[in-house]
C-alpha cells in the first residue's frame, strides 16, 4: 500500500491556496515559521516531497537533503533550531545510506525508516487538520448570540468557571513575581514577642520597677519596639506587671507584681487601663509566655 504523497497532498495544496493562514494567534516565537507558511520542518519536508512527486517510502535522501538546505536558506529559516535539526538529520541519514551493505544480507535497517514513520504520522495530523478546518469554517459562518455585558457587580455566589490551566498559570505568575524561584524561602520578619517577654521578665525579676527605655534600645527597629510593646501588654494581661503613666504622653512605668500568679484563663479585667484600649478581641499568643 505504497502511499504516494502527491496524491494525498494535492487536495491540501488546493485548500492552502484557498485559505491562507494568517498568523493571527502566532506568538513571536513561531513568527518566522508562520510567515513562511510552514508550520515546521516536517511541513516543509512534505511540501518538497510533493513538489518532486516522490514516493514517501523511497526518498532520495541526498537530493531531498540538498533541497531542504537550499529552501531553509532562501526562506531564511536557517536560524530556527527545528529546521536545522531536521537538516542535520537528513545529512546523517544520507551518510548512513552511503555505508556499504553486507553482501546478501536479508534484513536491512533502512536509515530512512524513522523519518518515514514520522512523516506518515505528521501527514495524518495534517489530514485531521483539514477535517478540523472544514468544521471550524462551518461554525464560523454562524453566530451564537453575543452575551450581554456582564452586570457591573457580579454576584459572588454564582457558578465559577476556571480551568486547571488558569490556576496553574496563576501559580506560574506568582513564581515569577517572587524574588526567588522558591516560594518557601520568603519569610516575613516576624515579631519576637517571646524573646521580649523573656528579657522583660528577667529585668522585672531583678528590679521592682522598670521603664520603657530599659527594654527598648535607642536604635531599635520597629519590629523590636512592637515586640516589646506586645510583650509588656502580655505581661500586664497575665498580671505579672502593672503599667502606669502619670501624665499623658509621659514615661510609662512598668511595675512588677509577683510573677507566676497570672493564669491563662484570667479575664482582661485585671489589665490596667493603659492597655484596655489596645486590647484586641483575639487572644495573644501565650506560647512565648509559657516558655
Amino acid at each position, binding site marked *: 500500500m505504497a502511499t504516494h504523497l502527491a496524491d494525498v497532498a494535492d487536495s491540501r495544496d488546493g485548500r492552502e491556496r484557498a485559505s491562507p493562514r494568517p498568523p493571527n494567534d502566532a506568538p513571536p516565537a513561531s513568527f518566522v515559521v508562520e510567515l513562511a507558511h510552514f508550520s515546521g520542518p516536517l511541513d516543509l519536508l512534505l511540501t518538497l516531497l510533493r513538489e518532486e512527486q516522490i514516493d514517501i517510502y523511497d526518498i532520495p535522501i541526498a537530493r531531498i537533503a540538498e533541497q531542504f538546505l537550499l529552501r531553509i536558506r532562501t526562506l531564511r529559516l536557517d536560524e530556527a533550531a527545528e529546521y536545522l535539526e531536521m537538516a542535520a538529520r537528513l545529512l546523517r541519514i544520507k551518510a548512513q545510506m552511503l555505508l556499504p551493505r553486507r553482501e546478501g544480507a536479508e534484513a536491512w535497517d533502512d536509515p530512512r525508516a524513522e523519518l518515514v514513520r514520522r512523516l506518515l504520522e505528521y501527514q495524518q495530523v495534517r489530514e485531521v487538520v483539514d477535517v478540523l478546518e472544514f468544521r471550524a469554517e462551518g461554525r464560523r459562518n454562524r453566530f451564537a448570540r453575543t*452575551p450581554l455585558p456582564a452586570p457591573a457587580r457580579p454576584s459572588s455566589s*454564582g457558578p465559577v468557571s476556571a480551568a486547571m490551566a488558569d490556576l496553574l498559570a496563576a501559580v506560574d505568575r506568582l513564581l515569577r*513575581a517572587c524574588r526567588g524561584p522558591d516560594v518557601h524561602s520568603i519569610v516575613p520578619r516576624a515579631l519576637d514577642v517571646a524573646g521580649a517577654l523573656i528579657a522583660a521578665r528577667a529585668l522585672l525579676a531583678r528590679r521592682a520597677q522598670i521603664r520603657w527605655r530599659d527594654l527598648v534600645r535607642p536604635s531599635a527597629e520597629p519590629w523590636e519596639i512592637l515586640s516589646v510593646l506586645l510583650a509588656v501588654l502580655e505581661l500586664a494581661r497575665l498580671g505579672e506587671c502593672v503599667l502606669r503613666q502619670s501624665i499623658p504622653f509621659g514615661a510609662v512605668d512598668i511595675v512588677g507584681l509577683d510573677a507566676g500568679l497570672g493564669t491563662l484563663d484570667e479575664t482582661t479585667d485585671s489589665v490596667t487601663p493603659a492597655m484596655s484600649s489596645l486590647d484586641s478581641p483575639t487572644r495573644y*499568643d501565650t506560647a512565648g509566655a509559657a516558655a
Partner: protein
Amino acid sequence: MTPLAQLLEAALFASGMPIGLDALLALDLEATPDLVLAALAELRARYDDGEHGIEVVEAAGGWQILTRPEYTAAIERAQIASRPHRLSAAALETLALIAYRQPITRADIEEIRGVSAGSILKSLLERGLVDVVGKAEALGRPLLYGTTPTFLEHFALRHLGELPRADELAVALRPATAAPVPVSAP
C-alpha cells in the same frame, strides 16, 4: 416571513444589544427605512403569536430580541443565563497560593502577593473554594486558610497530590523563551 424579516431575525439574535435603524439598514443595501420597519413589525407579530418564548422589544433607540419575562425565573433557577463567572487573575493567584501553601494566613498571602487580600478571600470563602481550617500559633492567632472539597471538584482533582509540583510548572506552562535558538554554523 419575508427574507428581510429573516435577516433581521438573524441580526437581532447575533447582537446582544439593541440595534438602531441605521445599522439595520446597513444589513441590506436595497432596504429602506419603511421596509425595515415593516419587516420588524412582521418579526414582532411572529413572536407575539402566543407560541414563542422570546419577543422583539424596542429599547435604547433600537430593537432587541429578549426572553419573555414569564421564563426569567426558570432560566435563572437553572443557572443558564448566569454565565459562569470567571475567577479574576487576583483570585486565581490567591487560590493558587492557598492550594500550594495551605494552611496559610492572610498575612502570608498578602506578604507574597504584595496587596491586601481581604475582599478576595471573602469572595473565595463565599464560593466555598477555600475555608478556615484552623488558627496559627503566631501572635494574634490569625486564621489559617485551606482549600475545600469544592476546590478539588472544581478542578477535577482527586486529591491535592494531583496538583503539579511548582518546579514542574516551569516546563509545563512557560513558553520556551529562547526558541527558536539561533545556531551558528561551526
